[in-house]
């Protein structure tokens, strides 16, 4: 309910100032929300929109001072379609995205289930321990993991060697570097998502889970068949955020192998889309082409988010159909019973 009434005749001592008093309450909200919209207009709408304009030009960084580049229509996009490096960066991004999102959501759901226990002692220690990676900067995270994934003396390779496996050259191999980068993302975000899922679990009614327990469903079954489906909206939301975030992967591939430059490894084995954009824009100063990459990134991100939504939609529909089928058979069965 809105508390500030713009018309409250007879209230208060505002007889002389009443006109302004009422007027003010009507104008003020616009004034109060204007800083956000002003900044958003300049640094959000304008910049993203202007990216589209720049992407239609052959625009070098120096052209900015001379009124812009030469109009080339869709040339930048055509070039992008035939750019093997861009497609490599896109596949890399997808690969890391899969390795980062799926285990992360699964682990977070397991940990949230374990934390969602009133008898658990010291919940605060576990919760804060899980959240601390999330507040750490990606730069610091990448530096530490780069040491852990080191070729000869990195702890992970030493461990592999100790267990009798072969050491992995994490930065040189494509899959290996994706795994290492995905590990950093997972390390940073699993705890955060655990807390999100825990909050959602605490807000779902307990009677369903209790009923299943009475019916003899084990803990794993209760978790997978009841808790997880009930959490689906939250999982969907977390997944979409994770997908969007993973398309912005930048610091990890930039810093992961400091000896080999900023192009995501010697063979671009861990070049991501945003890192490619950064290189095009601020190392080669091809603003036009880099803007085309930016728009492709927008489109891919939006498409991926839509795919996640659609996937969940199909899942829901299938479940509804299954529930409907169950109802029908039940009705048919009860009809038979009545008939018999």
């Amino acid at each position, binding site marked *: 309910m*809105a508390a*500030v009434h713009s018309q*409250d005749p007879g209230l*208060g001592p505002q007889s002389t100032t009443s006109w302004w008093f009422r007027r*003010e309450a009507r104008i003020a*909200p*616009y004034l*109060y*929300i204007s800083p*956000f*919209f002003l*900044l*958003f207009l*300049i*640094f959000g709408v304008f*910049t*993203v929109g*202007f*990216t589209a304009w*720049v992407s239609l030009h052959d625009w070098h960084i120096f052209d*900015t001072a001379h009124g812009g580049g030469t109009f080339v229509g869709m040339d930048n996009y055509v070039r992008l379609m035939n750019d093997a490096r861009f497609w490599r960066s896109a596949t890399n991004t997808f690969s890391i995205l899969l390795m980062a999102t799926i285990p992360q959501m699964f682990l977070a759901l397991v940990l949230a289930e374990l934390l969602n226990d009133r008898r658990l002692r010291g919940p*605060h220690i*576990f919760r*804060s*321990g899980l*959240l*601390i*990676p999330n*507040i750490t*900067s*990606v730069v*610091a995270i990448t*530096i*530490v993991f780069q*040491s852990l994934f*080191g070729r000869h*003396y990195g702890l992970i390779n030493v461990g592999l060697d*100790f267990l009798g496996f072969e050491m992995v050259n994490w930065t040189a191999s494509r899959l290996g570097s994706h795994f290492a980068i995905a590990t950093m993302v997972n*390390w940073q975000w699993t*705890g*955060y998502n655990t*807390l*999100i899922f*825990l909050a*959602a679990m605490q807000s779902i009614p307990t009677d369903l889970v209790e009923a299943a327990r*009475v*019916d003899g469903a084990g803990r794993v079954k209760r978790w997978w068949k009841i808790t997880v489906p009930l959490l689906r909206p939250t999982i969907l*939301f977390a997944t979409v*955020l994770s997908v969007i975030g993973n398309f912005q992967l*930048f*610091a990890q591939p*930039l*810093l992961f192998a*400091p000896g080999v430059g900023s192009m995501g490894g010697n063979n671009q084995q861990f070049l991501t889309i945003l890192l490619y*954009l*950064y290189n095009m*824009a*601020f190392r080669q100063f091809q*603003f036009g082409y880099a803007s085309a990459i*930016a728009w492709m990134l927008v489109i891919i991100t939006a498409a991926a988010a839509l795919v996640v939504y659609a996937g969940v939609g199909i899942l829901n529909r299938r479940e509804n159909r299954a529930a409907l089928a169950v109802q029908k058979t039940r009705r048919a069965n009860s009809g038979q019973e009545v008939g018999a």
Partner: protein
Amino acid sequence: MTNVDAVKARSAAGPTPGRDRKAPALKPAKPKFRWANNWHYPVLAVALFVSVFPFYWMFVVGSNTNADVAQVPPRMIPGPNFVENATNAMNAVPFMRALLNTFIVAGTVTVSAVFFGTLAGFAFAKMKFRGNKALMAFVIATMMIPLQQLGLIPLYMLMDRFGWVGQLRAVIVPALVTGFAVFWMRQVIATSVHDELLEAGRVDGCATFGLFRHVVIPSVRSGAAVLGMFTFLFMWNDFLWPLVVLGGNQSNHTIQIALRNMNQTYYSDYALVLAGTFMSLVPLIIVFVIFARQMIAGVMEGAVKG
């Protein structure tokens, strides 16, 4: 499922809490610790270990010499060289200057985002105006889009036009108020500012800004503090945009850029780099230790509200 099955399942699941409570009366000994009921402790302990280990490792490497760490098996406990390594790291790049810059950026943005976020949140939560709901939906939509990354190039051009490239204000100004701040404060104000108080203030002749100062601000302190912490941490850790716009001016580097340059130049000197990285995390860890409870509550409340 028959009743018998249910009873079996229950007894298989172990004693119920009710029985546990009765047990001491029959048997004065402590209730037995059963791994079958407590297997989640080891799993959670492993998760906790994985979460915290990289920090420990940072300190281990940062407090030993490179030779100590580059042996097989490597030294796994802290050594005596941390001060030396940290001093080297702080001399390798303008470390203190970068810390100061980051404080200026994160501090200014935090104060401003909380102030303007509260103002806008007040309007959205408690005032009637045309387009309230639609505009709020729009604010929420903007939170999902990583505008900074997508508009990176024109943003740089804009700053170039303003003559702000290399200046801290190029990082500060675009972040002065965010959709997240508006959304967060709207939720806080909607739940913690009472309409009766606002009405009373109105009757007393307060204009809307008076209500904001005397009613809203005193009742949203804790919610605003959580937003402030999140904003501060976010700005402290921000990397891409500061790198692009401040990268060319070393005296205005933020701590993340300084770290990156350190890593770029001294990457073979793990002891130095990790000691420096550890130092850069100290302010964050202090903030976290003090405010962990509020931050956890903030993350979890945000989840339910969002």
